[in-house]
């Protein structure tokens, strides 16, 4: 299968390891990955902040970038960005009165999958250890991000994939379905409420005794990881793609991009 990778802007710029892991997983399964060079961002930050006029060129660029090349499906390691591509792009186009763009955006949206959706529903991955050689000997917990959970209805796809990784120990996160408080510009506009939500999330994470918190959205993980770092918790965050890509030969290092005080790394 020919798979177009939508890296997403935050992963491209800040968490390239997540996109590299995505490429690695898909190639390991024998698929060809392409990276449409024109891609940039889904525009969700603009849309969710009310800047729909400014979102329009971002949306138009995404649609253009993802209709240039021939491919079977597109994939992004983010529930939130995929939800934006599927649900928001046609709306932004419609609101601007561009029916043509609306139809093209819908077509791109139909071909776009979140990574766990693609792995489970399309590529039939049920056992990461057996099918991908995934090995990650750490105690982790898992936060299901809101948009993957509620807009894409991902259910337990990410969690089930993580469960099937060799050597992994999963600690259940209390009140897992509570939002971490990120919410894009909400985290700045309503910084106090956002911080209060984050404090409860990080307390729950630390209470599990896990080395790290896994998730499926780099933005939420940056938020949670930023809080854990500020608190000096010694706990970090990691995208589930990096855990799936980790093997015995090439283990993923636990200390993430937010380097933490304990220097805890792979055992």
């Amino acid at each position, binding site marked *: 299968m020919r798979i177009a990778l939508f890296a997403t802007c935050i992963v491209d710029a800040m968490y390239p390891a997540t996109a590299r892991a995505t490429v*690695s997983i898909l*190639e390991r399964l024998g698929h060809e990955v392409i990276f449409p060079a024109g891609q940039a961002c889904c525009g969700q930050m603009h849309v969710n902040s009310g800047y729909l006029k400014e979102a329009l060129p971002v949306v138009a660029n995404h649609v253009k970038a993802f209709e240039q090349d021939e491919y079977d499906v597109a994939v992004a390691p983010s529930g939130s960005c995929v939800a934006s591509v599927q649900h928001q792009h046609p709306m932004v186009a419609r609101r601007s009165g561009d029916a043509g763009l609306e139809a093209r955006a819908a077509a791109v949206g139909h071909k776009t999958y979140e990574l766990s959706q693609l792995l489970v529903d399309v590529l039939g991955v049920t056992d990461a250890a057996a099918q991908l050689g995934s090995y990650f000997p750490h105690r982790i917990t898992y936060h299901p991000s809101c948009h993957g959970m509620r807009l894409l209805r991902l259910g337990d796809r990410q969690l089930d994939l993580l469960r099937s990784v060799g050597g992994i120990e999963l600690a259940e996160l209390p009140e897992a379905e509570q*939002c971490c408080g990120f919410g894009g510009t909400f985290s700045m*506009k*309503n910084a106090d409420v956002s911080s209060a939500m984050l404090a409860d999330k990080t307390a729950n994470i630390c209470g599990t005794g896990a080395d790290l918190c896994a998730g499926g959205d780099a933005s939420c993980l940056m938020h949670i990881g930023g809080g854990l770092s500020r608190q000096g918790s010694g706990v970090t965050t990691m995208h589930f793609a990096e855990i799936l890509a980790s093997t015995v030969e090439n283990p993923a290092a636990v200390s993430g991009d937010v380097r933490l005080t304990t220097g805890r790394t792979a055992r």
Partner: protein
Amino acid sequence: MSGTFLGMPSLPVFGIGNLHEHEPFPKAARRELGNPQLRANLGHATRTIRDKRLAVVSELPDWEELREAGRAIKESVMARLPELLEEFEANFTARGGTIHWARDAGEANRIVAALIRDQGATEVVKVKSMATQEIGLNEYLEEQGIAAFETDLAELIVQLDHDKPSHILVPAIHKNRSQVRDIFLREMEGVDPELTNEPARLAAAARAHLRRKFLSAKVAVSGANFALADSGTLAVVESEGNGRMCLTLPETLITVMGVEKLLPGWEDLEVFMQLLPRSSTGERMNPYTSLWTGVTADDGPQNVHLVLLDNGRSAALADEMGRSALHCIRCSACMNVCPVYERTGGHAYGSTYPGPIGAILSPLLTGITAEENNSLPYASSLCGACYDACPVKINIPDILVHLRGEDVDSKRDKRGKRGRERLPSQMDLGMKAASWALSSGKNLGLVEKALPLGRLAAGPDRKITKLPGIAAGWTQSRDIPAPPGQTFRQWWDKEHQAPAAGPGAGAAPAAGTEAPGPKENP
């Protein structure tokens, strides 16, 4: 015959009354977050109701179909509201009731006061009602020399404490029982000075207090949960029975109801009587459902009035993207699942309608251009829990985003019209710059070339702990990692080689490791 041209009514007529923020939400929220008692009470109460709701909702195999039915009925009511209102009016009037139409809060208040004065009354008992909170009826009546006594236990607590409700279903959710005892001891006439904080003793004290009011009142004022067009019937759904006392004992009953509460008929009520109790109190059925149709000779109130309230509802109905907010049946499920509400409580929203529904309904009723209501649509992380919980499937997150768009556009227009009166905000400028950077792969690639500056700023700790301007909101509780040495785009261009043909499952190359390197394919 000469006529006086009164002019076309100006549309839309926006709502007035208790529908506004008192201060911007972030500021109010900051204050409320600093109240540990409030946080503890709210956390406990919302968690309890949440769990109860989930239990009674999950036992219904057709819950999703019920929600869909509720949504569809409400949508059809909104589509033919004028004809249904006329049908209701005809039936209500035929059975001895009197209808009054109120364009806004001011009109509604004046109508109610005049009806009370007609009876020569100076006291009324009240059934818990959101509509009368919305129009500020109690305050208005007080100015007119009429005392209004709330009879719902929680409303009574709040009223005795000269406070405001903080939740539409449990108005005193922010108070615990010791606080309630203190309020009773301080404010309730003839209360037992030995009163303890045991719930049964508190309820008994309230019962004795209220009984005196029920037996003396000549006029009752209520809201309504539903109105049935095909028979002219009104319905109040409650838990305590105090509403039933008000609806049956006084000679005169005045109901104030928003026009959107209408249902076509009894069959539709069946759907909502399953949706409402489960979503609000987490019960299969509420203890008291009172229905009344006009006047019955020698039984119950003999003067029955209904004030039909617009107060911005027509304006909300005119908003194609926002109109489904009028489907709201005031169950409060969205509040109980909202992580923002759970931490700030209802007072932070200012308006009678707090929580997620309040964050859309209040600005829809007053108009988003009302300066004092434009921080409400931002009071959400857009987590979507409210949409999932809503029994009539109001897509609150989408409407929040829509209203944010209206807010940004209205400010843009003001700038356009008034030149330099309002300068672009930091957010405006940032969004404009980001729009350029993110609207082509080439632009983003260029901007990413500046990321090493971020690494420099992060220093040896590899984290950024303090940012200026609006970004300071982020760094007040969160670090930002130093950007990586190489973006994904750069890695792909320079180092990624297309894999050799054939799958290589099991024997995997390195990925997701700290040191990116050229990939070796097996």
